[in-house]
């Protein structure tokens, strides 16, 4: 595991923060970390990168405990609310951060990351003259400098336009292809849904769901079937066995008790002479899941 936490808690004067977080993030994945504002997302990220000291619990990042800085050479971090010295140029910022990473010959890598984030040609401008989006790109470039094994991104696209967001998604996918792990902290659900393999949802400081995105979005026992016009009394027969059955615009949705119910259901449809075109497990949108989980917490 790239990140493992055990009852990790960070509270501020006994309040807020995150509480007894148990999280596992596998290698080479894009991990989405979701939650409403103030849920404790940034607190957890800041604790994992060593900016906040945990109140209790333990965690290992790239196999090292939080107090150990020897793994920092391979960790990139783009904070949510960050700033660089505005008297520096973009190039100065990257040189400075390359120095902090103790990179021996950073020139080629600086050119590469500038290109990756689309800042080539803008690097000699003072940071003070950068737009917010450009600053976010520069922040990402600084985080990418060490070709990180683990990249923490805290709301990385909040200041970017749709084109910029797409570019960032592409960068994240290319990092995954190269074997890096990305911890993406975001409240943009569509973004997480598009790129993440695994996800966790935090609310009021506690993890309320985690797993692979596919598992999280699948609704247990819910089936959707595309059928032709129902023959005979198909709906009445199904209603007896599956009270949740609904038909809407040729889409039959119902909930089965277990896997063995599925062939039985198919038999009933076929026996009625109704054509069956498609059968699949029903999936939530991430937004539905998110909203339902938060509702359940209230």
């Amino acid at each position, binding site marked *: 595991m790239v990140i493992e936490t055990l009852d990790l808690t960070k509270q501020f004067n006994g309040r807020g923060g995150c509480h007894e977080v148990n999280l596992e993030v596998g290698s080479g994945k894009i991990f989405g970390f979701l939650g409403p504002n103030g849920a404790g997302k940034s607190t957890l990220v800041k604790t994992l990168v060593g900016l906040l000291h945990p109140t209790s619990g333990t965690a290992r990042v790239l196999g090292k405990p939080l107090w150990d800085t020897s793994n*920092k050479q391979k960790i990139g971090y783009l*904070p949510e609310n960050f700033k660089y010295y505005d008297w520096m140029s973009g190039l100065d910022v990257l040189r400075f951060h390359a*120095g902090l*990473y103790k990179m021996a010959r950073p020139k080629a890598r600086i050119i590469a990351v500038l290109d990756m984030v689309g800042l080539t040609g803008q690097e000699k401008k003072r940071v003070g003259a950068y737009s917010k989006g450009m600053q976010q790109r520069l922040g990402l470039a600084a985080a990418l400098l060490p070709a990180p094994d683990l990249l923490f991104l805290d709301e990385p696209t909040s200041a970017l336009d749709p084109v910029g967001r797409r570019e960032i998604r592409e960068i994240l996918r290319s990092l995954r292809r190269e074997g890096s792990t990305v911890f993406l902290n975001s409240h943009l659900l569509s973004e997480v849904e598009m790129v993440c393999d695994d996800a966790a949802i935090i609310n009021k400081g506690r993890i309320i769901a985690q797993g692979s995105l596919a598992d999280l979005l699948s609704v247990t026992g819910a089936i959707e079937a595309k059928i032709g016009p129902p023959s005979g009394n198909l709906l009445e027969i199904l209603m007896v066995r599956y009270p949740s059955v609904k038909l809407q615009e040729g889409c039959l949705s119902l909930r089965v008790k277990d896997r063995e119910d599925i062939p039985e259901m198919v038999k009933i449809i076929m026996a009625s002479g109704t054509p069956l075109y498609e059968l699949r497990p029903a999936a939530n949108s991430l937004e539905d899941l998110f909203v339902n989980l938060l509702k359940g917490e209230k």
Partner: protein
Amino acid sequence: MAEILKCTLKEMLNKKILLLILVLTAIFLALYGFGLREIYSQQEGVEPLMAMAATTQLVSIGLYFASFIIALLVIVAAAGTLAGDIESGVMQAMLVKPLKRWEVVAGKFLGIGLMVAGYSAFLFFAIIGLNLALGARIPFGSANLITGFLLFLLGPYLLMAATMWGSSRFSTLNASIMAVMLYGLAMVGGLLEQVGAMLEQAGQEGGALVHAGIISSLLLPTDILFRKATSTLFALPGMELFTGLFAVGPFQGISQPSPWMLAYAGGYAVFFLSLTIKNFGARDI
């Protein structure tokens, strides 16, 4: 740590306040030089010993004002060096790199320290150089100058350590206010101590004032170090008999620090620097 040191130095050079301080320094030196020229042009026929005593007064006044400007520079540079970077968010991206937090404190202390040392050396030797160039007849020895300068420099370093401690604990504004208050207390306490010592020399009751000065020196021993620096500067080789004469005046050192106080001053800087490292290390960013 070297990266932080370099960055701190560059940051100082990019601060507009530094330019303002340099302009004011030039104005101060021009005004001071003009005054010296007027005074030294009228010293014909004055007893050499009295002329020397007058020079010690003039040098001390110049150095006293210089120490004041240096203190302002120290406060401007050190109060925000940690707190400002935390408040602005600069520190977040910095501290996740493979460097220890004490390296950040040490790098910033050394960066500001180097700039303060350079600026202090310029002011110290400019004041003495102006006096010598415009007519002062006083035999400074190189040992006086070097030791005097090092003691002169120690004061700003103490203030820097205390201000950085404030910066590791409070906001930039609060750390600045704390540092200005401490420095002001040390200044007023130092003046009271000198007045008390003068009264005692004249056979009057000045003990309470001297004690008030000592207590203020415990809070921040910058003033007492300034007195020690000037008295060391004026302990002229072969003129030890007249050291008392050269020490008279509100900007000099009739009341001198004990060796314990000097040891305390040394420990003060180490203590506050250690406390800064401890605070900053434990602080949530």
